[in-house]
């Protein structure tokens, strides 16, 4: 199984900003998140488990499953391709230290795309990974909003430095 690990350009810019911040306190959290993504990719290449987000450690704060046919993919050849070729789209929210990441996993018959969609620093989390009760209540909505980044495939054409 071929597994491709991508960063959405918006996420790439977020990470670049965090790394450029004085002292870069988020550096360790970014590094650990990167390690988790690399581990997940390696595991998927070897075994392709059916339930991908459970592969994430720590377990996702929340996750969402979508039927690829129902998603508003951008009308790009890649979007049309994914609409019919993808079998499953899963979004997961993971928290490493104070770095919260949204990850998409797009499963196709011959390949899997793991896309780092969003990375932002939160307030110090509680033991359950959420910052507070409001944060926990809004997590699914926050994750759902990240779907727009995934389905907008116009970024494939942009040459972001």
């Amino acid at each position, binding site marked *: 199984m071929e597994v491709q690990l991508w960063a959405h350009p918006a996420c790439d810019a977020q990470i670049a900003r965090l790394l450029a911040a004085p002292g870069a306190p988020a550096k*360790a959290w970014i590094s650990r998140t990167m390690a988790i993504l690399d581990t997940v990719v390696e595991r998927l290449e070897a075994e392709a488990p059916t339930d991908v987000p459970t592969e994430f*450690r720590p377990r996702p704060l929340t996750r969402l499953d979508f039927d690829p046919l129902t998603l508003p993919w951008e009308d790009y050849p890649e979007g049309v391709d994914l609409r019919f070729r993808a079998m499953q789209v899963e979004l997961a929210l993971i928290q490493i230290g104070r770095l919260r990441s949204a990850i998409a996993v797009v499963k196709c018959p011959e390949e899997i795309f793991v896309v780092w969609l969003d990375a932002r620093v939160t307030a110090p989390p509680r033991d359950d990974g959420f910052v507070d009760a409001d944060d926990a209540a809004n997590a699914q909505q926050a994750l759902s909003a990240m779907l727009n980044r995934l389905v907008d495939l116009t970024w494939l054409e942009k040459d972001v430095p």
Partner: protein
Amino acid sequence: MKNREPRRLNRIRERLLADETTRAEYFTQRAVSELAAIIDRVIQKEKLSQTALAQRVGMHQPDLNALLKGRTEHLPTLATLRRLAQGLGVHLAVRIDADGGMRIRSASKAPQAKAAAKATAYTRDLASR
């Protein structure tokens, strides 16, 4: 999808691994995640409870739970890794490279442990004759 974007993530990885501190964070997290996946596989396969496994390997259940859920940032000690390998019945290979890279691998069976058990049984048999 076009195979163009991975370069971007590779650049981030290269930048992180060029820094000694974040490199250490990266490889520790990888090893912790790899170990947790190994333990989880055995738990699923043998339908073990975390409590039963914790008792078997002499760990506190909350520590085992933290490891499995990825809440811990540190690798267990060598003594704990040894007990885990014995308790899980897996061959654990911890590889630490000269450049600081670190990985944990497993084999589903522990051939060396089996060989050691065979040797012990053989020695006992000889002694009882």
